[in-house]
């Protein structure tokens, strides 16, 4: 095999692997993660990978693995054309903003205690660097009451020492400035950062 062909295949495999990890990615996100340079070039690369990808066209192209793509990277999870894919996209913006950490794990359940005083909580994503936890939460079409409940749960977990001695860092992503302020109010006293989607959209 020629060198260029090998490089091409390597890049394709890497793109498929990040889709395995992050489920749904927009063209722009793939461009940033894999350094695909110009828009035109990114489109070309992804066009060449048609056989492995499904695409949702919604203003921007959103890609996810099809059966063949899943086989290519040994992925068990089947992805469908969901209505909630926007949630995943928002989460991926945070993934990029935090510098694509390798410790990033999607959908981690934190379960603490037994039976009566059991508290369990599902984070959207979790980064664990040594003893320091970063908890990622995405608020897309979620009721504010639910969000506040969740924050309270985290408070309890924190008191019970689920995150060890260091205070965990919370990173939220939401849709509007109003909600941003609400979240900041609700999580007073916690180490928290809130972003809105506007901070990332259309930015390279």
């Amino acid at each position, binding site marked *: 095999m020629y060198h260029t062909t090998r490089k091409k295949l390597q890049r394709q495999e890497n793109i498929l*692997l990040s889709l395995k990890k992050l489920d749904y990615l927009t063209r722009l996100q793939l461009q940033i993660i894999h350094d695909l340079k110009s828009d035109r070039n990114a489109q070309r690369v992804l066009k060449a990978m048609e056989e492995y990808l499904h695409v949702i066209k919604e203003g921007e192209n959103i890609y996810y693995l099809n059966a063949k793509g899943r086989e290519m990277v*040994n992925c068990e999870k089947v992805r469908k054309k969901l209505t909630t894919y926007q949630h995943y996209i928002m989460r991926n913006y945070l993934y990029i903003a935090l510098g694509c950490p390798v410790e990033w794990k999607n959908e981690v359940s*934190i379960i603490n205690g037994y039976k009566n005083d059991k508290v369990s909580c599902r984070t959207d994503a979790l980064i664990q660097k040594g003893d320091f936890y970063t908890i990622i939460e995405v608020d897309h079409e979620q009721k504010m009451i639910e969000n506040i409940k969740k924050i309270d749960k985290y408070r309890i977990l924190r008191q019970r020492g*689920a995150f060890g001695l260091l205070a965990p860092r919370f990173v939220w992503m939401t849709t509007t400035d109003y909600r941003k302020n609400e979240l900041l109010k609700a999580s007073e006293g916690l180490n928290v950062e809130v972003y809105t989607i506007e901070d990332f959209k259309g930015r390279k």
Partner: protein
Amino acid sequence: MLFELVSTGSMLGVLGASYYFKTNQKDDTDKILKIADNCGLYTDDDELRLYRKNRSKDGKFTEYVFKIPLGLELDDFVSKYGKFKDGLNNTSVRSIDLKQIKKLKLDKSLPKQLESIIFNRVQLNKEIEFEYDGMLKIRVYDEGLTKDLPFNNEMLLKVKNWEVPIGVSYKEFIKHDFEKLQMLVVAGTTRYGKTVFLKNLITTLINNQPDNLKLTLIDLKGGLAFSRYVNCKQVNKVAKNAEETIEALEFIHDEMQQRQELFLTNGWEDIKEAGWKERHFIVVDEGAEIAMFENKEDRERATFLLGELARIGAGLGYRLVFATQYPTADVFPRQVKANTTASLCFKLKNSTQSMVVLDRKGAESLPVGLAGRAIYQTDRDRVVQTPYIQNEFIKSIIEPHIIIKARSEDQSVPHNQKKASETRKYITEFKET
């Protein structure tokens, strides 16, 4: 009276002989012609015609030479491979084994024994090969691939120096020479024989090159597979986890750089020119775990070191054997794969995976549940059955090479290890979904 006895006996002998030759003959001419006819391998005015038929000297195959009608080509026949193969194997046949007659016991059950010899049926397992050189040659091998190949002393005698037995194809015994092809990738689904093959390899090398071999064993399954080799004098290091792996690879990397400088100053191109006999084998089992290392630095470092080893290690006397279930790009960079000259691929799940490993389809259609069947890819691909090694046999081979090393401090395990006492009231678990 006597005359009658003799004549009847001789006639019976003739009958018996003719029956024996009839049942034990190995002529498939009619079958091949019939299959070709039924597959539509003929033209309007011509059909396949037998030109010559001969049996090989070693009695392993029969070669049929046919003249093919104008307008057909070799590919027409090759594409019907399955039809020919299954057609030639379509019934079980009687086979009289004359050696069994010596083993007859003279008692009441004699007629039954004779019956079982005469009516002995064997399931056919023929294998065919097509070739074209102006005539179509079809070689029919009486025995296809064996399903079970024990690893024994005879096999050890067949390999010399830095060769290891890969197994048998239906034609020949196949070995891998690490002097010619320095890198080997072993891939395939779990429970199909990867680790067994690695044990074959290590045992063979310890037996054939006890004084020139250095081994670094990296087993990320927890170190169980290679535990029996720990005390061999050839074994440098056994790594079981990320830390030990990095340590082992770093050590090799430093050694490699020193060697490179030495070679440069002496003007040697590679280890052959240097005339060194020592070879250092790095055997990695479950290599995919490297991509799962907790630390980012560890992971990147390990991948980088393996890459370096694959890139420049070969000339300096380092030999990498890398086994993993499925070498995707995060585990096994394509640049490294390009440097591996040979791969042994056991069964995989589907054709896509096969494309990743072998750059062609085929590994998915290896038989299900048959451990040890693999595709050995060098400049061409061959389907082989790899030998199965018994642990007792390994023991008998490596016993002379075992020296009890003093355990280093950190290796020793305290006898009265107490469990950490529960201090916290609540236990937290982080579960990935």
